[in-house]
């Protein structure tokens, strides 16, 4: 079975005609609330107006000007709480404009017609390093290239793209899509150095010597441990490893029953994927009540529709070869146990850079510029915000690029 047939798209794309019809519905608000609700401030009515006139390339350029990750954001953004949630049509009980689908329509056209990003070549330009090749660094690098700075992106993984490549549910976004965005940024002249771990394959001192400024966009570490007996058993896997594995490795066998521990969006991504991979019974075990769950309402709804079983107020205390035992007495059969209780901080890496300040394991930055306590270092994305959306990382990467440009001049 191909990945595409195992994981059918959650929201199929719009046809050209449907896109124009939907674009025509847009009121073209002034100082539009949808644009204000977007962390990257994409000028939504402007790009939609261009779809309705058939100016798809112009539309995509409007999107990319604000957010180089326009394609992935169109697919993975929680639009219900962002642009679409802010659409004024909500105020009169009309369906909000399907902004995410329209953005995807413009972006697909851009990639299909081999569109390019604007960038400058400046002699003797300053060199900037971005650590991590996820959304934050890609956004930062693209913005810097617009102004002609030289950028090198270091990443310890073999493929760039960060969680867009390794961590997004397959039915939302595929690694091929993620690669298209990486190649777009590469084509502006950004150099990618993959498989390079900072502080190991290259020292902090060397980095500081070679580069005028350094952007930290390393994201978060692995899933936090449960610290309960049985956690080390072979059928217990953390959510991010699970998602990365089914996206990139051989077909997976999850067995008849799967238990997912956690109550966030990643837990839901993993549970739904387990269903797609053939599990008959998938249960989400959450230690608190339904009302406390951190997953978005529409993700919860999606899980419900996918037949996921939710067990509330259930904290696992022991994992056996075939079950998960909970503190409320529940014993759930499971051939695979997926742990999704949040990612840990990458303290090991961050603490190597002694001059920056951390708070609760997150990098502290100036909210206007993304600059850390050490003026040479800027940061953005999950390592700053503790783990949010792709669009937040894109916004923070862009903000840091502007901060760097300001600081260097």
């Amino acid at each position, binding site marked *: 079975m191909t990945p595409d047939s195992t994981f059918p798209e959650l929201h199929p794309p719009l046809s050209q005609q449907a896109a124009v019809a939907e674009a025509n519905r847009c009121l073209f608000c002034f*100082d539009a609330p949808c644009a204000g609700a977007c962390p990257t*401030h994409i000028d939504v009515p402007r790009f939609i107006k261009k779809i309705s006139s058939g100016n798809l390339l112009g539309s995509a350029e409007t999107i990319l000007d604000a957010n180089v990750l326009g394609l992935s954001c169109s697919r993975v953004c929680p639009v219900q*709480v962002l642009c679409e949630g802010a659409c004024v049509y909500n105020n009169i009980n009309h369906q909000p404009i399907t902004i995410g689908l329209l953005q995807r329509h413009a972006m697909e056209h851009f990639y299909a017609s081999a569109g390019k990003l604007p960038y400058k070549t400046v002699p003797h330009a300053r060199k900037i390093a971005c650590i991590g090749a996820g959304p934050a660094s890609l956004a930062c690098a693209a913005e810097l290239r617009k102004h002609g700075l030289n950028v090198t992106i270091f990443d310890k993984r073999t493929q760039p793209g960060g969680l867009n490549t390794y961590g997004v549910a397959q039915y939302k976004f595929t690694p091929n899509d993620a690669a298209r965005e990486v190649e777009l940024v590469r084509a502006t002249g950004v150099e990618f150095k993959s498989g390079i771990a900072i502080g190991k394959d290259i020292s902090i001192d060397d980095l500081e010597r070679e580069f005028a400024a350094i952007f930290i966009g390393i994201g978060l570490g692995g899933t936090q441990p449960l610290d309960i007996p049985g956690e080390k058993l072979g059928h217990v896997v953390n959510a991010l490893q699970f998602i990365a594995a089914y996206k990139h490795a051989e077909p997976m066998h999850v067995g008849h029953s799967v238990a997912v521990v956690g109550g966030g969006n990643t837990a839901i991504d993993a549970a739904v994927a387990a269903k797609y991979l053939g599990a008959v019974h998938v249960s989400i075990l959450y230690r608190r009540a339904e009302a406390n769950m951190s997953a978005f309402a529409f993700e919860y709804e999606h899980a419900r529709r996918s037949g996921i079983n939710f067990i509330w107020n259930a904290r696992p205390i022991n994992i056996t070869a075939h079950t998960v035992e909970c503190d409320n007495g529940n014993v759930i059969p499971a051939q695979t146990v997926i742990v999704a209780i949040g990612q840990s901080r990458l303290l090991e890496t961050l603490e190597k850079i002694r001059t920056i300040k951390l708070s609760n394991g997150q990098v502290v930055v100036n909210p206007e510029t993304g600059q850390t306590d050490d003026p040479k270092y800027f940061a953005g994305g999950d390592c700053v915000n503790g783990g*949010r959306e792709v669009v937040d990382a894109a916004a923070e990467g862009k903000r840091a690029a502007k901060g760097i440009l300001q600081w260097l001049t």
Partner: protein
Amino acid sequence: MADLTTLFAGRIKSPNPFWLASGPPANCGEQIMRAFDAGWGGAVWKTIGEPIVNVSSRYSSVDLNGYRMMGLNNIELISDRPIDVNLREIAEVKRRYPNHAVIASLMVESKREVWHDIVKRAEDAGSDGLELNFGCPHGMSERGMGSAVGQVPEYACMITEWVKEVARTPVLVKLTPNISDIRTVARAAKKGGADALTAINTINSITGIDLDSLTPRPDVGGKSSHGGYCGPAVKPIALHMVQQIAGDPQVQLPISAIGGIGSWRDAAEFILLGASSLQACTAPMHYGFRIVEDMIDGLSHWMDSKGYANIEAFRGLSLPRVTGWQHLDLNFKIVARINPDTCIGCQLCYTACWDGAHQCIHVDGAAKPEISAAISAASIVRTPTTPTVSHATPPKRIPKVDEHECVGCNLCWLVCPVENCISMVRVDKGEKPQSWAERSKSV
């Protein structure tokens, strides 16, 4: 139920005022009989004359934001079928539908004996009236017919006279809008003895150009030609021209109105400006004959609600309300009011007033509308972790009208996407009305 039966020009009877206009939907007897079965009260036959040869393609249209055929353009000529076939079918239709109106549209060479001949033959076939096509703006005009006649009052008068020399049924002259003042030809037709007028024929147009091939539409082997424009887009022009001739004391003839009529609302508007019957072509071309059902019961329900027993009860009632600008009351004053309870905060009124009107709608904290540069410089918002529950419009997004500066132009009310959000409210002190004509006289 209101009575929709129509007696046009004193002698043409139809069960309702809705007639198919001379055009593709009235091309042959079979179509017209199906139209009558669907409810149409009459039909003006596709123009009969010496058969022509048509081109392919023939139609092109203007779509607006997803609505197809807001305007339709055609370069089709008069009937391409032999005269005797058309006349035989007229006889057949009249035999089977004696109570419906069948009017023969005619266009022949500008020769007295040729006109005499076709008039006699059409009437012998049984047509209830004759419509002289002095309006077709393409193809026929180059041969000295159609609008070539309709644009020269003397020709129009002369040919009407020829027709009237032999005609036994009412003669309708169909007017072209492609002229600087439609009343000149209306008066000429009256002078020639016309019993009624039909207005308007199609408007000269080029609907658009294919941006790949660079050929204007409709494409006839890489070339195009101007055509006749009709459909919803032309209704305001038709309404104006019908009002002009209906309001002209020198004309005073029954009018069969045509131009963008597709619903009972359109029909009521034309009747209010003096029309006695209504013709439709683009609407049945777009949706089929079945649309007449809504036209019939929509119009009669509206008439019932207004207490109009028949068409004559409200015909022309809006005519006295159309006047020259110089007679409008300069002391009448309205301003815009925005209802904050229904405002959705789209700010279309704000940008429209600033960029397109009189700069009197304001938003808190903004002196003038500024383009989105302001938001990209702002520190970034983050994705909320809880869904937005309230969909109330934030008060700071609700624009406010400076009523002292508002000139009452209506633009904000026109652009507002929410019904009953902006209202135009009368604020004058009830001063005695004074028109510009009166004011300039008193000075």
